[in-house]
Each structure stands twice: as C-alpha cells, then as structure tokens.
C-alpha cells in the first residue's frame, strides 16, 4: 500500500509500446516496480532499454499502453513537474560545464525555488554522501574533475530534490573497473538509505546481478524474461543464456553460491 492507500505498484508499465516512423522500438512492455527495488534493464545496444527509461520521465511518450507512477498515468502529468521528481543519471554525466560542482548539484532545488540556505545545506550533505568533500570540490568546475568524480556529482545532482525514483542510463559505463565497483557499492547504500525505486539500464551482466532486485532482459524491443538475480542462472531464454555465456566459468560458480 502506498501513501494514497491504494494497492498500485509504485512504477508500472502496462503494455507499453513505442514506435517511430512505423518501426517498433519497444513492443508491449509490462512490469511493476516497488520502492526499494531496482529493475535492471539488460540488453544489447538497440534493444530498446534507453527508450524504456525515457518513457518514464516523458522525454518520450509511448505510442501504446501507459506508464503509471504512484498510481497516476504519467501522460496526465506535466513533464516539467514530473522530471523534477525523478533523478536521472547518464553515462556522459551531462554536468553543466559553466557551473561549479555546488551549482550543478543544486540545479533541481534551484528550479524548485528552495530557499538558498536549504539548497546550500543539501549540497553539502549530498557531496559528503557521495564521498566528495564540499569545501574542496564545491567550487570546482566539472572539467577539473576525474570521470569518477564527475559521476559522483551527477549522482548527487540526481538525488538533490529528494526524488523517490531514480533512472540510470549506463551510468558507470565510462568508469574504470575499480571506480565502477565503488560507485555500485555507493548505489546500494543510497538505495537502502532512501528506500528508492530505481530503473537501471546496463549491458553488463555482472552489474545487473550486483545491483538488480530484478533483471529484465530486452531483445529487439521485446521483453524476453524478467527474473531475480538468483533465478537468472537457470533461465533458458536465448538472450539471457547468451549473456550468461559471457561470464568466465569461475565467476558463474562464485555468483551461484
């Protein structure tokens, strides 16, 4: 049950399709997601996973079916208001290069006209949480940061206005393996701390297994299967099998335990 006293899931896709110029990108995708859960959309390039993500915050609108957030169809919501309620992190960071780190993190609170003092406090709190000292990093520009630091700032920015839903589009794809690992750990901490719902796009099975509470395998715009990470190893569908075959055997055994 959510705050409104109904039994609707927090985020729900009902037979959602998207096509452009007669070409189907996404075909009747359905799934539900509760707060505290992470749905990983796993698939190759062109499988429609980024499209699915963009249908949630109305950067695209479905050509069929409906997306529901907190019981309301998102198509009935003002996209600007909707987007300010949803955190969004992309692979290329998308930090505003002419703004400082602190200004970047304060972006959505600023759009929502929070008082300056509350913005400042929130920025300090968030930079701390993603492991960046506010005094050192707050006044820097994005170009003075490493890739890992930029993505920390982007994650802090996505969390700034206390969203209940986070969307991640291959956020850690451009990072080195060690930084990536750290960021994944941080993601898990943030998820449990804020009881967040999140949709996470990746083509990395290990990442999917580490972060997902459920994994949806997309292939050519069609949902092949949707399972928990534990169930993933016994799935028989072809694309899921193909992803499993990319794992070194020892890793597969280790993760099975």
């Amino acid at each position, binding site marked *: 049950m959510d705050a409104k006293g109904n039994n609707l899931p927090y985020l729900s896709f009902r037979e959602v399709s998207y096509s452009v110029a007669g070409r189907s990108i996404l075909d009747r995708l359905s799934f539900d997601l509760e707060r505290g859960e992470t749905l990983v959309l796993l698939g190759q390039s062109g499988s429609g996973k980024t499209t699915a993500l963009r249908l949630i*915050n109305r*950067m695209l609108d479905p050509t069929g079916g409906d997306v529901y957030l907190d019981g309301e169809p998102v198509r009935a919501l003002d*996209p*600007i*208001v*909707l*987007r*300010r309620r*949803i955190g*969004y992190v*992309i*692979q*290329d*960071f*998308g*930090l*505003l*290069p*002419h703004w400082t780190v602190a200004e970047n993190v304060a*972006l*959505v609170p600023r*759009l929502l006209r929070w008082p300056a003092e509350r913005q400042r406090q929130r920025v300090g709190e968030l930079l701390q949480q993603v492991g960046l000292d506010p005094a050192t990093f707050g006044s820097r*520009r994005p*170009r003075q940061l490493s890739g890992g630091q930029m993505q920390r700032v*982007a994650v802090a*920015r996505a969390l700034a206005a206390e969203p209940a839903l986070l*969307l991640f589009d291959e956020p850690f794809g451009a990072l080195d393996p060690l930084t990536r690992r750290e960021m994944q750990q941080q993601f898990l901490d943030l998820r449990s701390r804020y009881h967040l719902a999140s949709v996470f796009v990746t083509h990395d099975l290990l990442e999917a297994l580490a972060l997902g509470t459920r994994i949806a395998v997309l292939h050519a715009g069609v949902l092949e299967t949707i399972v928990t990470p534990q169930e993933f190893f016994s799935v028989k569908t072809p694309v899921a099998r193909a992803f499993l075959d990319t794992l070194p055997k020892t890793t597969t055994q280790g993760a099975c335990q």
Partner: protein
Amino acid sequence: MDPTVIRTLLGDVLQLTGEHIILVGVSCSVAILIGVSAGILGTRHATVRRLSVTAASVLQTIPSLALFGFLLPIPYIGGIGRHTAMVALVLYSLLPILRNTIVGITSVSPPVREAAIAMGMTDPQILRLVELPLAAPTILAGIRIALVTNIGTAVIAAVIGGGGLGELIFRGVASVNTLEILAGAIPAAGLALLADAGMSLLERKIAPV
C-alpha cells in the same frame, strides 16, 4: 600648410568620426537584436532557420555598393540619407551574427542538453541557463566580425549621403587631395582596430570554461 585648413579638416574629422560611430553603433545594435533573436528562433524551428540563413546569405553576397543602390528606390526605407545607410548596414551585418548564434546554440553537447531536459528545465530555462551562456563566446565572435566589417562598409555609406568618414575619403578622391583621403582612411582603420581589440577583450572576459 595653412593652419585654418588644418583646423577645418580636424573639425571635419572629429564630426565625421562621431557620425561614423553612430552609424555603426546603431546598425550593429539593431543587427544584434534581429540576428540573435532570429538565431534563437532558428534553433527551435527548422523552417525559420532555413529561411533566415538563406535570406541573410543572399544579402551578404550583394556587393555593398550595389546594396546601397538597391535600397535607394524603395519607399520609406530608401532614399538619400542616413536611414537608408543604416538599413543597408543592418542587413549587411546580419549573417555572421545569425549564423554564429545558431552554431553556438546547436553545438551545446548532447549529454548536457539531455541532462538539462531530464532535470526538468523548461525551454526558456534551457536557453537562459545553458544554451546562451555556453554559446556566448561563439555569438560574440560573430558580433566581432559584423562590427569590424560594418566599420569598413559604413565608409561606402557616404555615397548615398549616409555621412561618416567615407565623406572625407570620397571628397579627397574627387579633388585628388591625399591629405583628405588619409584624414578619412586612418581614423576609419583605427576605429576598426579598436573595435576588434575591444571585442577580443570582451570575448576573453566572458569565455567561461
């Protein structure tokens, strides 16, 4: 040389330099207003972009002397005098400003634009907070080209009674008076150099990242 001649010439130079500055200043300001607005609209509507860039390009290809000639017979904006010169100078300055505004805005990197949209910025906010600040150096570079070119073109405005330093040059040429020619040409070149240096300073000052 007769000191009264020198004194008269000096007076002319001062007055005509003033006229020149007004001619350039007013026409450039109007061109910035129109060029930047049309450029912004052009980044929102492909048709506006096509039409405005084509029109400005065509205007730019007309030799400046011919453009002054074309305007003469047009009612209201044409005729002999300063306002015709102003109109011609505005038209002539549009292209670099318009084109650089469009280039500057459209070259904002896709992830930056995507993030701005995804964070819930409205289109005017994206323009004001993201696109214009990031495009500013490019737009200024366009204004710089327009301004410097304009100072040179304004010399020709004298043929249709536009005033400015061109008057001295044309008068000098007609009377084969080198002193008069130089008295017009040197301040005109000086103005152009000064404008260029000033704009370069401004560009460096606002170049943010």
